[in-house]
């Protein structure tokens, strides 16, 4: 008989996310893992800019809202001066892979001892559905109305693959939140990342494939199917780096 209660760091009010938004689920998973680890008072959420910023009115733990793309830099300042804290940056794909690409790659390469949780839904949701660095080829957005054309916009960025080539990161994994198995795997992955951080072992990165019913113009349930047929084949879930496992 599984016991399941509402995570303590979630506000006692509905989230600001749209119906079926997996950002909301990702936030819930993080809060659940923090409960499991008893880290409620020790956690510090570095909130980025985009739909992720809706957590400003939803997150019940300590948080710092920072400039677009700069969460890994701010997290560096936090963690380096307060190494005992459980620090995680929660970022979307525009924040992390476009304006903040230098910050994420540099923080990962420095092996900063915090966790970055990357919600990848291939669009700029908050600003109305523009093309993001991870927008799929052919995907229609408000700035690629005929579908993303690599000839002028290049290709969707695979962040796990990129970061896993770096020496310093300890754990790099991607999960898809469009199925019960994916959700459970993601919960375990976030927990593992936090445990590696708490053990002081270095940089951890968890990419979560999420959705955007509003800007994909699909019903919540249809987005889950869209992810199976379009997102997951390109952004393959899995563990891309796990120095713990490699060591065994």
């Amino acid at each position, binding site marked *: 008989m599984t016991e*399941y209660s509402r995570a303590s760091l979630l506000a006692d009010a509905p989230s600001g996310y749209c119906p079926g938004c997996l950002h909301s689920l990702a936030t819930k998973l993080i809060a659940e893992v923090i409960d499991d680890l008893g880290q409620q008072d020790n956690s510090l959420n570095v909130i980025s800019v985009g739909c992720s910023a809706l957590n400003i009115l939803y997150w019940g733990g300590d948080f710092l809202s920072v400039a677009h793309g700069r969460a890994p830099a701010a997290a560096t300042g936090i963690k380096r001066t307060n190494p005992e804290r459980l620090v995680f940056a929660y970022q979307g794909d525009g924040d992390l892979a476009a304006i903040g690409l230098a910050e994420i790659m540099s923080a990962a390469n420095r092996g900063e001892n915090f966790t970055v949780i990357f919600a990848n839904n291939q669009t700029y949701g908050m600003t109305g559905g523009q093309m993001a660095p991870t927008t799929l080829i052919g995907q229609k957005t408000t700035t690629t109305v005929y579908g993303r054309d690599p000839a002028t916009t290049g290709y969707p960025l695979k962040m796990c693959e990129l970061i896993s080539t770096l020496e310093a990161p300890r754990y790099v994994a991607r999960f898809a939140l469009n199925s019960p198995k994916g959700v459970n795997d993601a919960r375990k992955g976030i927990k593992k990342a936090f445990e590696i951080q708490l053990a002081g072992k270095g940089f951890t990165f968890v990419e979560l494939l999420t959705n955007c019913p509003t800007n994909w113009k699909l019903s919540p349930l249809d987005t889950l199917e869209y992810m199976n047929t379009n997102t997951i084949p390109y952004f393959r879930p899995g563990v891309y780096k796990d120095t713990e496992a490699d060591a065994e």
Partner: protein
Amino acid sequence: MIEINPRYCKSCGYCIRFCPKKVLAMGDERNRRGYFYPVTANAGACISCGICASVCPEAAITLPGKGECDNG
């Protein structure tokens, strides 16, 4: 047995879709924000697996601990 807190529900339907025992169905009552929320149409079939609670983006579904109903 599961508990649904209509207040947080946004009618996305994930719990209904992934319940392995088809326990849940969309109800015909709306919460305060106008969303229809699910009801346990087939309560007897529930095996308390917790998948509904796990996939709910809004943490609207909870399962009380073993035996007594200790948390809301």
